[in-house]
């Protein structure tokens, strides 16, 4: 069995499962946020259930439109807070929170071998730690919160093998953009993407979170990594809990095995308006930028901010470009502050925000006007994603984003380090 199949078998009380089978799966952790909890509360009430299945396994994070951006968002956040308190769920208030998919692993709430479902499509981020994690809608999440289980169809697994050594400035964001560019936004529809190979072994945890995060942009149900020394080291730092680490069997059956040689790969940029519309940065041409955003559940971790700071140190953001940097959690913010990264950003002329999903989904903290162009380390560049339907979003790594902020157009990190 593949990694995903093993976890699903254990969580449904079966010895073996195969792609296409329907299962009732026990969940270890259920997640929601400020924009989905109000719908979930309604559905739980409709179910006639007064208590969630296990309060310590229900996590609620107000991150999308928080700190409250307007009265309507404040009402949703209030309802979310009330529900979390009533249920005794794990809740992170503004000031202690982070972007959910940065926060949960950092808080040690995600462990290998778990099944995690969340009311946000980027719940698949936790596959970086060898968990089976997937996003669902509010009705599914209501049922999971109420009953501790959810139905799933066992997905087939596609294996992606990355050979060769990663070139300078090329990381997880480039690997996943390149892959989505190759297979398309429905290239892994209904499938699990399992990531492996020499370059993956070398990739740090932050890079793995980025890759797993964007599996859904290829239509996948989950994006997963096997547990290795880097995973164990991360878990030692962040959690005291014991866990079961599963590995794919040697004779596991894959729907497809796709190999890439990364040794000559350049940083990648996804052009509007699909994450699959990918080019190498040297082929980007001259694209002037009104705004650059560095952060999000995709790239808001300490490693991401370190890369950005390395390129912004002693430099200035281009006078016609606005650079917005959003640490993914309070802990990332504090560590960045202690390391002097925040000082570097402010001195370079960037704005640094409290953790929020804000600009990524056109919510607040950097919404685009008609005709404006933004290069962002987020995960989606659909029409209207960050504001006006007449604005444009380009996706890239923190390295390309920081370099582009300095140059004022899409630029390779090499351009500012020469």
């Amino acid at each position, binding site marked *: 069995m593949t990694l995903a199949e093993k976890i699903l078998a254990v969580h449904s009380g079966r010895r073996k499962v195969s792609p296409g089978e329907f299962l009732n799966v026990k969940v270890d952790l259920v997640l929601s946020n400020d924009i989905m909890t109000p719908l979930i509360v309604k559905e739980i009430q409709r179910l006639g259930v007064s208590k969630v299945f296990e309060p310590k396994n229900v996590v609620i994070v107000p991150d999308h439109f928080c700190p409250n951006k307007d009265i309507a968002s404040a009402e949703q956040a209030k309802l979310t807070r009330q529900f979390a308190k009533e249920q005794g769920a794990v809740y992170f208030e503004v000031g202690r929170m982070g972007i959910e998919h940065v926060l949960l692993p950092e808080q040690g709430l995600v462990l290998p071998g778990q099944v995690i479902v969340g009311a946000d499509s980027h719940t698949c981020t936790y596959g970086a730690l060898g968990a089976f994690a997937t996003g669902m809608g509010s009705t599914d999440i209501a049922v999971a919160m109420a009953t501790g289980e959810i139905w799933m169809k066992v997905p087939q697994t596609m294996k992606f093998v990355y050979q060769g050594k990663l070139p300078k400035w090329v990381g997880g964001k480039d690997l996943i953009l390149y892959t989505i560019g190759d297979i398309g936004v429905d290239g892994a*529809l209904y499938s699990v993407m399992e990531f492996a190979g020499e370059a993956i072994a070398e990739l740090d945890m932050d890079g793995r979170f980025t890759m797993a995060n964007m599996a859904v942009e290829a*239509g996948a149900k989950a994006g997963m990594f096997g547990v290795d020394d880097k995973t164990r080291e991360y878990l030692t730092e962040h959690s005291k809990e014991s866990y079961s680490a599963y590995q794919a069997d040697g004779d596991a059956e894959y729907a497809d095995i796709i190999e890439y040689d990364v040794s000559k790969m350049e940083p990648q940029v996804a052009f509007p308006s699909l994450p699959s519309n990918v080019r190498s940065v040297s082929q980007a041409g001259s694209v002037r930028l009104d705004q650059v955003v560095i952060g999000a559940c995709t790239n808001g971790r300490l490693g991401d901010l370190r890369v950005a700071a390395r390129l912004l140190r002693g430099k200035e953001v281009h006078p016609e470009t606005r650079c917005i940097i959003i640490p993914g959690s309070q802990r990332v913010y504090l560590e960045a502050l202690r390391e002097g990264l925040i000082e570097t950003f402010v001195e370079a002329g960037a704005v640094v925000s409290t953790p929020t999903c804000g600009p990524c989904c*056109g919510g607040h903290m950097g919404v685009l006007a008609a005709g404006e162009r933004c290069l962002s380390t987020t995960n*989606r560049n659909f029409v*209207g994603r960050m504001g006006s339907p007449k604005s444009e979003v380009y996706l890239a790594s923190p390295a390309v984003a920081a370099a582009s902020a300095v140059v004022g157009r899409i630029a390779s990190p090499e351009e500012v380090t020469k």
Partner: protein
Amino acid sequence: MRLKGKVHKYGANVDTDVIIPARYLNISDLDELTKHCMEDIDGEFVSRVRLGDFIVATTNFGCGSSREQAPLVIKHSGIACVIASSFARIFFRNAINIGLPVLESTEAAEATEAEDELEVDLVTGEINNKTKAKNFYAKPFPKLMLEITAKGGLIEYAEERLKARGT
């Protein structure tokens, strides 16, 4: 149940951000929210749609976010059924869970144009394009999904499972 209506036609990768932009997700009132259905891809949709109409699109319909508001506003706008070559998996689940019929048929999706008149039988999966005088058959639903839809949605299905467990 036979449905009859006109077609609103779209292409590939109609994402949840164009179905219902995230900037409106602070709106809790469904009537109000539905005024923005398809706004970023088709500004005329809301004024053009009539009760019982169909949305027909090609591949990967509903890709992107897990927001259930996407199938909710489509259903609330009066759309009786979405027909596509393929659906993104979260959208597909959400649609089933909230009782928005969804049918997969590449042939029907490709042969159908805007304003065509369709007659659809949800039980047999038959899609009759009256304008083009052509018949298509959608992929049959798996057994579990038929059970969920027969119960009226996931909440009703889960209620029964909870009762069986005696909780």
